[in-house]
């Protein structure tokens, strides 16, 4: 399976979607529900990619980019998660659990790389300080494009290294997976949904009346789920 992974195409996708998180164009192409679906589509299974994306999206609801907060970089991470699930198929026992661990770990490291990039941007800004302070257009524009290309490189490298580590690791793990397929999938989704439930409660309880809308919606949602 691992030899079938289109590493180059996924690396380019991870670079572009990693760039979208902060640098350009912040159109939320990097949200898990989009990025993991795209990752799954690249390996030929967008439906599994969507399942990975929806599950990672539940985690991402907890880490909204408010202010200068530090958060996982979900763009490149979701490409890795979606591709891993797509490579093995959503029905493979344990595939969702392994894809989620790979995506969260990549997102965590990706968040760290974003902080390092911001520090690097700071170093470049200090070096160009006198030129910026005297209004040189090339310094201002150069700093901006330098940060843009460094971020593109960061996302690509992160995706590449993560795929090189997790594709064989996932293959080896899934070959000796012992737990039931449906239970494995349920455990992964329940963990993600618990994080999301806590996140939406914390997010909306501060708005007057919102908790009643949440409870009303929950009643409707549970009814619809049961009737499906």
């Amino acid at each position, binding site marked *: 399976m691992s030899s079938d992974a289109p590493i180059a195409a996924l690396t380019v996708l991870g670079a572009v979607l990693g760039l979208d998180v902060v640098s350009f164009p912040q159109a939320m192409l990097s949200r898990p529900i989009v990025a993991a679906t795209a990752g799954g589509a690249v390996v030929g299974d967008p439906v599994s990619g969507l399942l990975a994306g929806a599950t990672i*999206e539940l985690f991402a609801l907890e880490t909204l980019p408010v202010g200068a907060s530090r958060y996982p970089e979900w763009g490149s991470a979701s490409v890795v998660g979606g591709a891993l699930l797509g490579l093995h198929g959503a029905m493979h026992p344990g595939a969702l659990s392994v894809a*989620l661990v790979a995506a969260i770990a990549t997102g965590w490291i990706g968040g760290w790389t974003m902080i390092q990039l911001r520090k690097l941007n700071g170093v470049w800004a200090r070096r160009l300080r006198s030129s910026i302070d005297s209004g040189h*257009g090339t310094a201002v524009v150069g700093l901006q494009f330098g940060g843009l290309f460094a971020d593109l490189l960061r996302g690509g490298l992160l995706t590449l290294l993560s795929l090189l580590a997790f594709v064989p690791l996932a293959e080896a793990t899934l070959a000796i997976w012992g737990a039931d397929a449906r239970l494995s999938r*349920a455990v992964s989704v329940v963990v993600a949904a618990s994080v999301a439930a806590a996140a939406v409660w914390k997010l*909306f309880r501060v708005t007057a009346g919102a908790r009643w809308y949440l409870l009303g919606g929950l009643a409707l949602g549970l009814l619809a789920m049961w009737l499906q």
Partner: protein
Amino acid sequence: MPSRVEPAPPHLPVITRMEMALRLFMIQSAWNYELLLGNGIGFCVEPALRLLPGGKKGVAYREALARQSQYFNAHPYLAAVAVGSLARAELERAEPARIERFRTALCGPLGSVGDRLVWAGWLPACSLLALAAFGLGAGPVTVVLLFLGLYNAGHVALRAWGLSVGWRRGMRVASALANPVLREGPAHLARAAALVAGVALPLALGRAIGPGRTLLGGSVLVVALMGALAARLPVWLQGWRLALGVLAIWIIYSLAQFTVVR
């Protein structure tokens, strides 16, 4: 009735306006812990500053660009308001000290309003709507297009409105920030998003787990219990970190099961 006629802004060629609008999408690419969004503001205002007397080589251009590239903090989408109003202030040759005071005063409101409206309102609302569509059985193309189309309709409209209102009002832009959409929008959005969240979470859970009422019913109960516990976690101990630990333990257990079965 008092007259509220605003002075007409100076002429801004369409190509300059488009270049500024395009640059707004890159406003954060040199974000750092010293200048924050500062260089990005200078980068976005720069096309307009070329219209100052003497052009790119003129003293006015250099002084204005140096002023606009200093420390600045705002929400990246609403920074468009600052870019429009600061560009107009510079082209109208307002007093430098006044521009600097105005620039400093813009930081707070453009940050807090944007965070509440976009990051804590519009983004989760669109994300939850996409999850609800997934839960109702929509395919990959429908879910992705629904999310991207809806989110970016709001995103691009906000940036375009910001640049336009900033340019039209110049240093009198404060009144635009009292717009009902910005003032009351976040609360309405939060209520709508809370309703969608309630519908979306069980539906998404149902589709992701698949058929089987016993497993699904048990899963709902566990989510309610674990969600209530996770809501009490201290802020620094984020749920996704704990989730990584739980999933890692689950993987180790599953591999041990394989050994036991053999």
